[in-house]
């Protein structure tokens, strides 16, 4: 190995190390805060490792009534919005995969929505929800609808390649066998794209789970977890906030551990053969 490639290898190592530290260090600090007593958190100079351990923050998090309902609300909103977004996104993706006009309109609309500054539609959305009577509802249904709307492009783009990969012949065979278009979609297309459907559901779920801006606006008093976490931090409850933040990571970690390999496959599906 010559000097040049050695230097290159060292540079590569240094860069990788930097990326890992940048990603892991905040997580470590968060975990540390969540088990450090309140007083020690603000010690100066800061402690890299906690001198005293406590579970008080976690216990307090579970004892607060508001938090329990926030967890349930967040789960509900994420599940409902993921289901709606995946179903509607699947219909859009199927149209895009089967018609070139739909593909052109769909792709430009979908990427247009993603480029749109979300805050620009926040006030009108709030007014619409208030008019309909689901603003700040305890069930979080208003927020679920907003999240579904935001997540549709993600779902559609995830599913587009999956539907494009289903041979047209199979749908035609089903049509000749006597199936209606909606029947074909439900009994042929959806089951055949099930791996990508799972991916889309998960991505949409996570999208809603840690969405902050609309949640803050729409669920003023009946909060979901991200705004709740925000209020904890703002009011100086660093310990419980850290514990809560750590707990919020559980779904994401579960997804990565359980579905990591499958997810990698479907996320890049269609990009190469």
């Amino acid at each position: 190995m010559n000097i040049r490639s050695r230097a290159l290898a060292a540079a590569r190592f240094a860069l990788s190390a930097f990326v890992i530290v940048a990603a892991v260090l905040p997580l470590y600090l968060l975990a540390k805060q969540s088990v450090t007593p309140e007083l020690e958190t603000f010690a100066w100079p800061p402690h890299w490792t906690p001198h005293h351990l406590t579970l008080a923050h976690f216990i307090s998090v579970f004892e607060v009534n508001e938090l329990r309902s926030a967890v349930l609300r967040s789960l509900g909103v994420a599940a409902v919005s993921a289901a709606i977004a995946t179903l509607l996104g699947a219909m859009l993706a199927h149209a895009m995969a089967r018609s070139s006009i739909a593909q052109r309109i769909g792709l430009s609309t979908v990427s247009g929505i993603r480029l749109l500054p979300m805050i620009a539609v926040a006030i009108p959305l709030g007014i619409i929800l208030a008019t309909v009577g689901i603003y700040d509802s305890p069930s979080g249904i208003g927020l679920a609808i907003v999240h579904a709307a935001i997540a549709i492009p993600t779902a559609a783009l995830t599913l587009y390649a999956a539907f494009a990969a289903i041979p047209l012949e199979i749908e035609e065979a089903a049509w000749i066998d006597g199936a209606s278009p909606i029947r074909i979609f439900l009994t042929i297309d959806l089951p055949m794209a099930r791996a990508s459907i799972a991916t889309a559901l998960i991505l949409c779920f996570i999208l809603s789970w840690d969405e902050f801006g609309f949640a803050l606006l729409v669920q003023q008093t009946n909060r979901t977890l991200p705004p709740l976490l925000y209020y904890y931090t703002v009011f100086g409850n660093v310990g419980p906030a850290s514990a809560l933040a750590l707990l919020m990571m559980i779904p994401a970690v579960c997804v990565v551990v359980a579905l990591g390999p499958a997810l990698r496959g479907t996320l890049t599906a269609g990009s190469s053969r």
Partner: protein
Amino acid sequence: MADLVVRNLTRSFPSGGGVFDISLTVQSGEFVVLLGPSGCGKTTLLRMIAGLESPDSGEIQIGGGNGAGKAAHRESIAMVFQNFALYPHMTVFQNISFPLRLRRVAREEVERRVRESAAKAGLTVDLKRYPRELSGGERQRVALARALVREPEIILMDEALASLDAQLRSSLRLELKDFQRRTGRTFVYVTHDQVEALALADRLVVMRKGRVEQVGGPQEIFDRPQSEFVAAFVGNPPMNFFVAKRAPNGGSLTVDGIDFKIRPPERSPAEIKVGIRPNDLSMEADERRVAIEVVVESVEFSGATYVVYAKLGHTSIRAEVSRRVEAGAHLTLFFDTARVHLFDPSTGRRVGP
């Protein structure tokens, strides 16, 4: 059972392909094969009969009822696709029963009819297996059983054997023909394989560039091709063609100065294309036959016969003979003037005999 009638059907594509003004009647219980090279419109025609594609003009009737794509029309046809189009996420049983489940047929009857049509299609595998676990031939049988299970009047097949290997293809061909006889169903079968077409068809529809070139029984198509295109397309090894000149004052036809001793039909053009099938050229001498001298260039052994590639003057010629000959040899070949085909070179139509 009902006839299938196609009237003045036209569908053109921007690419210039399509079908143009096709009329065709398929009798109930008949096995009709649409034959032609790729891009001749045979698949488009089949897809329009199926209702998967709508014509620009013209109509399709089954048993007098009009309208491809309508529910009653769709009810009376089934289709087997080139790649079988089985539902990969369903078991064999679920695949075959799909059309019945859509029609809310009672459970016991579904069970009975699935087993019945699986048996008719010669399917012996466990019905709980998935299509991906089956061989090509088994998948073909599943597709056939699925087409059969709701007892359609007409079964459409699009190159349904093309993706199988040669041996399986020929055995399934036999079975398919037998199957059609037993069930008495009407079949419309699309293929570009002339061997398959001749073997299966009660009646052949030879197509070219979106138009019907000739309709007839296999024997008729082979023995009396109505155009140079049909003559060249059907038969293997392909027919020999020679440009022949008419000798002055009503004499016989000559090729490269060699007298073919064929009387041209009256009012025929000055130049005529003469077609002779390789298997109509023989090494056995006969009084009534015309002799031609050729120089052998190469020989191919085809199992039962030898295919000889030779030169007649400057013209290449193929002959199928029963005895081995050596390359470079001078050979005398004989043909029967009753078995030649004469075409008008400008129109391509048959002018005699």
